[in-house]
């Protein structure tokens, strides 16, 4: 019958009518977003709804003393004040550990703490009122005594004698440590021709979603159900969390996310203030809304990437990598974040260092410690930009030590394109990567000779420019090996239900979600392609636990690879069903027919036989005219989960061309290139924009974004005037190229594309800055690369 095969998917419109996969179809939901007609959680207004505001801890670490609420209760509009003890009556604490992360420990976390505040910005007391303004007035009228305790802020001293043990019941501040070791690292270093080393720092930063965290919880006493409107990436996961913490049946909880304004991993975690909102709704029997403001976002959204890494690399005289030896330390705040845990980022560093290269001897340790700062957890490209900066920073140091071209040393060490399947020294299994094809493609795009000539000429005028390269791998399409095996109720499987309505229009509901990146657009393309209809006829439903198949949501770049394959399979199943029905109506063999742009046609010759509209009319309204035994459900569901490989790895390589002003320490980004291989590209425009947006976020971490704390644990960057996000004026021209190595695990062949830009950009920029500074004898390895740090490296300031 009508086979959709890996080979046919890639065909162009000319060769394959009704082809949408691989085409830059405009996003159906984009006009809604840009015309202000989207429905974000804050746009949802429910009858009898209350608003909440939180008193947040002013101290990094303090004992919570008396809580005086009388004055707050007297504020007009204030309805009720909730303390930690009030919430704990209906809501259980959680402990964020995963069983497969051996030895991991963390303390129980309550929505509002009972006795101690452990980071500045932690929600302590909630005020419910008729409006948010009244709730804030109520918060201002609260009198809470905080008895300050010494704060443990420096991760380097977290395990030292004399450290403040943040949770005494844990014994110490160690959350998790893991060492991966293969080969004989000591011998490799002893035998090395050159050994290079450096200390790298990646700055603590955060996701800054355009729409802040938002939630409305509505407990209906009449039927005992909790409906939660939530700005989240993982509605089914949150359904389970709310049910478990509030001691309800999962089926009595419904999570709805309409439009979500950006996530970047920020909205895939359990936040204590959001769970408190659900608990308050449960107690009050009324809807309760909480919309974080920007101030709260900086203090209470998860942070990420607070790492210090010592790295060493041994190479032989030909520039071949002999061994990597990496020691990573990360501070994650006072609690591991539920349910994904805050040990994953460090664990990823262990999994990913040296990732693009073919070598034998590897040692990497991560040490994950507690500190009195905002909790950290998974944020776009979890661990990748750290591992890439360390790996690629060391590769450049080795090239310099050898007097070798940075491109040449990479060419000599990148895993060969015919070496797959391949298992890395860290134990990662790669199905198929394209490092050398990607490097070749990059070199077609980057005018290296012209750049080097320009660089030499500019230097003669005292202008310092540099070119930096960074190869990377990216982990996408995770299987249960990421969270499920650790005991977390986070689905690695996803499903899609596709149906045809009487007028021939198609509705598909999917367990993956949309946060602005275009998930719904690619699902529509895939379903249109699979069924054989015009993409305009396809409507997509996501983000509702009651109406979509159970699934994991969108994170770790799984939307296209997992959700897309489920959509394709269910669309193909529906097409088969339609052809069976059409065959009965037309008295033709189903496999002699095809569906093209909403019409049943003869496969041979293409003559139109009937429209889907007509087929729908007969099935739904004149079913009496069809054979009795004919199966006529015009609805199909399929699920997909990866089985062969724990993760679908992708790869790519980036280049950055910068100018550094040695007088001011300012870095100007001149041009940026990225070649990536995400397997099958469903929508080239969306993939390119994902790569560009990802690069911009990587630039943020490299040059601007930094959650700065003072030694006492006070957060100093609490507004967008102090926390610098990358802005359009400073962004370079970006060029994106592709190599396509589809995964054979699915028919669609798509891997993830959302994190590649972020994974590689900081390393490329670091190498470019250091290339520019090389004649001046300066080097920087501490992100963000601020004017201050560059001037220090130059010795201009002490």
């Amino acid at each position, binding site marked *: 019958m009508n086979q959709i095969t890996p080979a046919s998917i890639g065909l162009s419109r000319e060769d394959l009518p009704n082809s949408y996969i691989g085409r830059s179809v405009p996003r159906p939901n984009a006009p809604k977003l840009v015309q202000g007609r989207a429905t974000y959680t804050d746009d949802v207004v429910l009858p009898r709804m209350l608003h909440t505001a939180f008193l947040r801890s002013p101290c990094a670490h303090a004992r919570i003393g008396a809580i005086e609420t009388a004055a707050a209760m007297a504020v007009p509009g204030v309805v009720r004040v909730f303390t930690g003890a009030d919430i704990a009556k209906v809501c259980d604490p959680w402990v964020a550990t995963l069983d497969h992360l051996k030895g991991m420990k963390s303390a129980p976390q309550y929505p509002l703490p009972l006795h101690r505040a452990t980071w500045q910005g932690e929600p302590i007391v909630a005020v419910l009122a008729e*409006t*948010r*303004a009244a709730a*804030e*007035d109520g918060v*201002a009228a609260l009198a809470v005594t905080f008895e300050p305790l010494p704060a443990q802020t420096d991760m380097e001293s977290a395990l030292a004698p004399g450290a403040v043990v943040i949770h005494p019941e844990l014994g110490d501040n160690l959350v998790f440590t893991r060492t991966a070791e293969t080969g004989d690292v000591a011998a490799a270093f002893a035998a090395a021709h050159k050994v290079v080393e450096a200390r790298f720092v990646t700055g603590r930063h955060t996701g800054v979603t355009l729409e802040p965290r938002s939630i409305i919880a509505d407990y209906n006493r009449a039927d005992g159900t909790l409906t939660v409107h939530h700005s989240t990436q993982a509605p089914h996961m949150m359904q389970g969390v709310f049910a478990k913490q509030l001691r309800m049946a999962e089926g009595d909880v419904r999570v709805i996310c309409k439009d979500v304004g950006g996530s970047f991993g920020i909205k895939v975690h359990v936040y204590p203030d959001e769970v408190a909102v659900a608990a308050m709704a449960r107690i009050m029997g009324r809807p309760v809304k909480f919309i974080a*403001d920007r*101030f709260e976002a900086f203090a209470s959204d998860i942070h990420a990437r607070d790492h210090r890494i010592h790295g060493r690399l041994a190479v032989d005289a030909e520039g071949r990598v002999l061994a990597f030896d990496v020691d990573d330390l990360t501070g994650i705040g006072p609690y591991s974040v539920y349910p994904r845990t805050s040990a994953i980022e460090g664990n990823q560093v262990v999994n990913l260092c040296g990732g693009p290269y073919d070598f034998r001897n590897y040692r990497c340790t991560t040490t994950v410690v507690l500190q009195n700062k905002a909790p950290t957890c998974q944020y776009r490209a979890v661990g990748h930009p750290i591992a890439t900066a360390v790996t690629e920073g060391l590769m450049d140091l080795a090239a310099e030590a050898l007097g070798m071209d940075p491109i040449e040393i990479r060419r000599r060490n990148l895993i060969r394109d015919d070496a797959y399947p391949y298992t890395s020294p860290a134990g990662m299994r790669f199905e198929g990567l394209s490092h050398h094809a990607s490097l070749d493609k990059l070199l077609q795009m980057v005018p290296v000779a012209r750049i080097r000539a320009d660089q030499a000429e500019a230097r003669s005028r005292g202008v310092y420019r540099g070119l930096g390269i960074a190869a990377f791998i990216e982990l996408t399409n995770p299987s249960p090996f990421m969270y499920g095996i650790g005991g977390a109720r986070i689905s690695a499987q996803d499903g899609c239900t596709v149906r045809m309505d009487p007028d021939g229009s198609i509705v598909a509901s999917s367990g993956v979600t949309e946060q602005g990146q275009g998930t719904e657009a690619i699902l529509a393309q895939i379903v249109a392609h699979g069924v054989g209809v015009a993409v305009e006829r396809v409507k997509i439903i996501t983000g509702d636990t009651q109406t979509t198949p159970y699934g994991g949501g969108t994170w770790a770049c799984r939307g296209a690879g997992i959700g897309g394959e489920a959509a394709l399979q269910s669309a193909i199943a529906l097409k088969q069903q339609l052809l069976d029905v059409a065959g009965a109506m037309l008295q033709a063999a189903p496999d002699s027919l095809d569906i093209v742009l909403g019409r049943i046609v003869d496969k041979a010759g293409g003559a139109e036989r009937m429209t889907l509209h007509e087929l729908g009319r007969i099935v739904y309204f004149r079913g009496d005219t069809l054979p009795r035994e004919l199966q006529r459900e015009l609805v199909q569901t399929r699920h997909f989960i990866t089985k062969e490989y724990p993760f679908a790895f992708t790869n790519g390589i980036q280049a950055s061309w910068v100018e550094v002003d040695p*007088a*001011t320490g*300012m870095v100007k980004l001149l041009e940026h290139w990225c070649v990536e291989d995400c397997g099958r590209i469903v929508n080239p425009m969306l993939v390119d924009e994902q790569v560009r947006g990802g690069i911009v976020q990587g630039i943020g971490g490299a040059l*601007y974004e930094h959650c*700065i704390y003072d030694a006492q644990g006070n957060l*100093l*960057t609490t*507004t967008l*005037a*102090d926390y*610098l996000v*990358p*802005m359009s*004026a*400073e962004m370079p021209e970006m060029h994106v190229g592709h190599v396509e190595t589809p995964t054979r695990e699915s028919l669609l062949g798509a891997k993830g594309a959302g994190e590649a830009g972020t994974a590689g950009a900081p390393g490329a920029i670091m190498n470019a800055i250091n290339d520019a500074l090389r004649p001046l004898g300066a080097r920087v390895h501490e992100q963000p690369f*601020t*004017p*201050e740090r560059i*001037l220090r490296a130059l010795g*201009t*300031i*002490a």
Partner: protein
Amino acid sequence: MKWPAMTYHRATSLADVWAAFAAHGPSVTILAGGQTLLATLAFRLSEPGMLLDITRIPELRGITLQGQVLRIGALTRHVELGRDLLVRQHAPLLAQAVPHIAHPAIRNRGTIGGSLAYADPAAELPACAVALDAVVVAASTAGERRIPASAFFTDLLQNALAPGEIIVAVEIPIQPSLAAIDEVARRSGDYAMAGLAAAMRVHDGRVVAPRLVYFGVGRGPVLAGAACRALEGRPLTAESIAAAQAALTTDLDPPQDLHGPSEMKRHLARVLTARVLNAWLRPTEMAA
């Protein structure tokens, strides 16, 4: 955060303003472009009883040449300053400053009166006002009072206005032959890490009345007396510029901030000194 509860009143004449002051006293806060004030309200940094919107008062608008003085109404928006022909002709430093101030949306609303009144030490216009030896025209029921810009910025976010006074205009003596502004900011539109607004004349090959005013490096715009003395009466040369740079050790004691330590800011001030003054080396030589 939501704004605190307050009342709003729109004045359409100065008389309205005086009446509001008389009726409500210190609880009145003047609202001009709102680009600073409204943001601070959203942080609940201040809780005014009444916002008095002055943007519909015609007397506070307009740019006119009055003899040797350019009078710029307090409500002149940054965007207007940037494109006004009289400003370009007689006080081009102000026009040159505009692209450094924030972003277009903010420049469309922010006013020169608001910028001067707010007295942000990193703001461009206060520094330009001092560099150009401008005079701030304040008014109250008692009439107008002229305050030299160099005496107007009294401390961090503090000005010399008395209670019951507002800024109605700023008067700029027609600009000396040389004036320029430069700054180092992390991103375009950010407040400067360090900036310099400089003005001077060159007479018979010698520097006359130099005014080097640094911003982002102190508790207000800093007129660098020692650096100016290092230039005054001397030809503008690599040596005199180096002397002015060296003198900044005396003139500047920048507070450290999130961008870096005091030493870095002083270094950036020296870099800007060279960048601004070096650009004038040729005209000086030509004049000599």
